[in-house]
């Protein structure tokens, strides 16, 4: 067992880095007991974990617990991750597995349509007409997105949240061959456009 120690670095080694390189340096520091490094990882990668879990249809309150479970599981696996750069892929894989476990244990497998959430988004002041139009556009996009095949929804959600720097992590975690993620994403976007078009709205 190792104890965590408070770090007293004034200029952390991940400063100025970004993307997977930044997180690899943070992971190394976290392994050596640097709590700040672990917090950086939590702050910057929790949105990814959240969307993986939500993308699997886990309800929001349960998803909060799953996210915590994933990070707690990382603690004991800090030293077992062979490549620090593989952290994002590990998080995605673990989050998916946990989400599936929770979802299969729940009685109602599908979450209610978050469209109602959209309806509750208050319109901001300023230009009511433009705001309404934009809300309508968003609603149509969301409704089209929800009609995509689950695999496409997951892939688009993850590529949007993870960003370009993490395509490889996403591909690995979804079990897709390297290089196929771009074309597959392209086909998903085509389908999304077709669904939007079928609704008769502007694209």
């Amino acid at each position: 067992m190792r104890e965590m120690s408070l770090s007293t670095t004034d200029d952390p080694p991940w400063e100025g880095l970004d993307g997977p390189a930044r997180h690899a340096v943070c992971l190394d520091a976290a392994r050596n007991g640097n709590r700040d490094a672990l917090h950086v990882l939590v702050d910057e990668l929790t949105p990814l974990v959240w969307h993986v879990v939500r993308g699997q249809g886990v309800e929001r309150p349960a998803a909060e617990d799953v996210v915590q479970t994933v990070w707690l599981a990382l603690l004991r696996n800090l030293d077992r991750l062979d490549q620090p750069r593989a952290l994002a892929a590990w998080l995605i894989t673990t989050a998916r597995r946990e989400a599936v476990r929770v979802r299969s244990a729940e009685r109602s497998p599908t979450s209610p349509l978050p469209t109602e959430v959209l309806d509750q988004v208050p319109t901001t002041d300023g230009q009511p007409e433009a705001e309404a139009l934009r809300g309508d556009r968003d609603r149509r996009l969301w409704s089209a997105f929800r009609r995509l095949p689950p695999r496409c929804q997951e892939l688009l959600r993850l590529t949007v949240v993870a960003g370009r720097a993490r395509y490889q992590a996403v591909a690995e975690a979804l079990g897709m061959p390297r290089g196929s993620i771009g074309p597959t994403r392209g086909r998903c976007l085509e389908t999304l456009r077709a669904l939007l078009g079928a609704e008769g709205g502007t694209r």
Partner: protein
Amino acid sequence: MNSTSDDELLARLDRVLERVDPVPADLLDRVRFAIDLEYLDVEVARWERHSELAGVRSSAEPGSVTFTVDDLTVMVSFLRTPRGYRIDGWLAPPGPHAVEVRIDGHGSNTTTADSNGRFALPEVPRGVTQILVHLAENGRSARTVVTPTLVL
């Protein structure tokens, strides 16, 4: 060429996701608190019946929750008191294990389960709460089981 480029469509989707399904505001704090543990070699206990009391909130009526890990079940019930909560719990299988209840900003309360696996903490402050069970083996703490946080 499409009227909407891939990048534009993805950017719109990003904004919509942000609005329909934002990361809960307090989640980062709860994760940070949950993993700020003295020891890293912990096993995570999971909710037994998720839908019943998942993500317990301060507005929720106190009740009981069950966490499980491979070979240990932790049942905990909460009873509101004027200043906080009384916690009663049971471990199965029973053992003289130390039970630690951490509350964000209030340190931790520790007790030991009796030979029947029962434990009680008569007065625990409200807040973001996490339960740890230090499993004793030959009188030494051999493993630590932790739960995700509850908001009580």
